[in-house]
């Protein structure tokens, strides 16, 4: 414990605070997400040590998710996908001149959601890790299969989701079947002339930065890069009007939404919007009086914002205990960990106790900093929604380049990877494929291959995947359940549409 305290210095806390601030700014700018904040700021962590890097990244993560509330309330535009439900009640309140009050409700709900999920993470991740430590290659493969199925079944269309996931796996297989993982070191899925560039396949981070950074810029450019907004459109309103009394009788809502957010965050690859939409509808169904929801009721803000901040802790659970990212931001975090020489997975927490406590400290501290920054400086932060995009976007491209180039100590091909995957990410979103399963497939594809092939090499039969252990059978049960869930939901929504059409 004392060892761990010596790792926390002033720089550590400053970096976490800086991360939270930059994250809030990114989150507050419509079109920019927490994922992008983490991706763009990655190069800064190359020079930092592991613990300082973690402080910065977790600050960015928490800040980025929280910042989304600002444009949601003031402009009716969700700054991040997860603040979509914040617009329902936040914007009507801002229209009435209660912008600041609405934002402060959001801030309090956010910090509660963030802290509850951090507590769940702290208690639950080590347990899950301890449990999964006994997993052999067979179970590990099935866990990945389960993760991909869950993501696909949460997609708008399960078939398309699965296809996107398989496409991601395919992309990850380009390169060698690595000798260090027990492969034979031969290349596949490419032409010979590409071997100097693609011997080790596409690097993870340039791919992610390309898909989340460059592709977003391309989508914006296609839409013509709408000019910035003017001061007049922002109605933050007068201060005051906020008191903790707004939360009286809302405690159940607050806690329920936080747990919903944490749980949804745990499901791999499920984006933030699912969490806040679920929490919002639950509040609508269960609350005694939901007649004001959608017209500017603080209870809607509480549900939405506590759920979306609770995602942070939730999404870190599968990342740290199983090595499977819970959302796209944690997918970028996995890259950052690898960069620092850390392998996340069942062994991470037992073998890196200090790092684990340091992470928890950073996460809790980032939440607190976020709270104070936003609660007291919200008026000034709200102005960043006015930063013109013609200033911002070129800088984002520039930071993407730095991130991609420096990652392997100066390889120009990694910069071109940015463009390749930027264009690919743009096309994927245009033709209706799903980004989340593709990314998770890309990240987990390499491991899936090793686990799959090694299992077959040692047991010599496909049936081993079903009969290896009770855990394997349970995992198959879960896979079947998530497919069934998706099919039922699909049929339900189809029936509803037919009903509406009739």
């Amino acid at each position, binding site marked *: 414990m004392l060892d761990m305290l010596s790792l926390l210095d002033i720089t550590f806390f400053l970096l976490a605070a800086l991360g939270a601030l930059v994250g809030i700014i990114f989150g507050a700018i419509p079109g920019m997400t927490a994922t992008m904040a983490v991706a763009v700021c990655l*190069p*800064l962590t*190359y*020079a930092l040590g592991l613990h300082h890097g973690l402080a910065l990244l977790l600050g960015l993560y928490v800040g980025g998710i929280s910042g989304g509330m600002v444009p949601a309330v003031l402009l009716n535009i969700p700054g991040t996908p997860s603040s979509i439900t914040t617009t329902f009640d936040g914007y009507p309140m801002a229209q009435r001149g209660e912008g600041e009050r609405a934002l402060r409700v959001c801030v309090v709900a956010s910090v509660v959601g963030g802290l509850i999920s951090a507590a769940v993470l702290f208690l639950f991740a080590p347990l899950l890790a301890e449990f999964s430590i006994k997993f052999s290659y067979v179970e590990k493969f099935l866990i990945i299969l389960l993760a991909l199925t869950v993501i696909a079944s949460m997609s708008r269309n399960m*078939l*398309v989701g*699965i*296809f996107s996931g*398989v*496409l991601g*796996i*395919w992309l990850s*297989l380009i390169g060698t*079947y690595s000798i260090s993982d027990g*492969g*034979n*070191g031969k*290349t*596949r899925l490419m032409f010979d002339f590409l071997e100097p560039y693609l011997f080790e396949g596409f690097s993870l981070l340039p791919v992610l930065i390309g898909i989340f950074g*460059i592709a977003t*810029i*391309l989508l914006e*450019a*296609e*839409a*013509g*890069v709408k*000019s910035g907004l003017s001061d007049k459109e922002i109605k933050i309103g007068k201060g005051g009007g906020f008191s903790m009394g707004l939360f009286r009788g809302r405690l159940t809502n607050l806690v329920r939404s936080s747990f919903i957010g944490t749980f949804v965050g745990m499901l791999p690859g499920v984006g933030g919007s699912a969490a806040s939409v679920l929490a919002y509808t639950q509040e609508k169904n269960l609350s005694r009086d939901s007649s004001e929801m959608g017209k500017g009721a603080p209870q809607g803000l509480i549900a939405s914002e506590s759920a979306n901040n609770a995602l942070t802790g939730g999404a870190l659970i599968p990342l740290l205990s199983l090595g499977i990212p819970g959302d796209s931001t944690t997918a970028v975090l996995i890259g950052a960990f690898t960069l620092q020489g850390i392998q996340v997975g069942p062994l991470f927490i037992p073998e890196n106790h200090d790092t684990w406590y340091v992470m928890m400290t950073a996460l809790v501290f980032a939440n607190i900093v976020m709270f104070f920054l936003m609660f007291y400086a919200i008026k000034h932060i709200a102005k960043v929604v006015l930063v*013109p995009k*013609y*200033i911002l*976007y*070129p*800088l984002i491209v*520039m*930071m993407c*380049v*730095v991130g991609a*180039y*420096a990652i392997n*100590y*100066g390889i*120009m091909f990694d*910069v*071109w990877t940015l*463009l390749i995957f*930027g*264009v690919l990410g743009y*096309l994927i979103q*245009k*033709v*209706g494929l799903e980004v989340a399963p593709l990314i998770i497939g890309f990240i987990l594809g390499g491991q899936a*291959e090793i686990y799959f*092939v090694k299992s*077959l*090499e040692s047991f*010599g*039969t*496909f*049936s081993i995947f079903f009969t290896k252990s009770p855990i394997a059978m349970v995992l198959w049960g879960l896979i079947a359940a998530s497919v069934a869930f998706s099919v039922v939901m699909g049929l339900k929504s189809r029936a509803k549409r037919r009903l509406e059409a009739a």
Partner: protein
Amino acid sequence: MESGLTSLLSVSIDFETSHLFFPRIIHWLMGGLFALVLALNVVPFLAAVRRGERTLPILGESMDKFRFFGTLALIAAYFYLMDVVGNLFPYTGYGFLFVSVVFVFLMSLMYMHTRTKRKVVTAAINAIVAPSLAWFILAKLFQITLP
């Protein structure tokens, strides 16, 4: 019957070609899924396009051609020239610095909808200050490799 099923499921992987084993399965999966997507999603969608209910993505949508292709061209030129200029001054990061200044300024100009003098000056200052700052912090303070 029992043994028949067992032999059907049993498999042996030749180490020499083991790098192709998993990709082959993925190829079959991808092919199968693609056929399904084609039959269940793409064909109905195209039929809706023909009836005029939906529009094709990218081709059928209105887009800001100038800014979209301009962005692509600028980014490609940026990446290419960064390397070229960087090779003139190896290990200094000047390639990144000089080309970034030009790139940031041009992209700002392209994204502006109305060009007032004040906006152009802001963009110019931004284009000089931001890359210099990034270059100084990353290349000088943190010693990170830049082109």
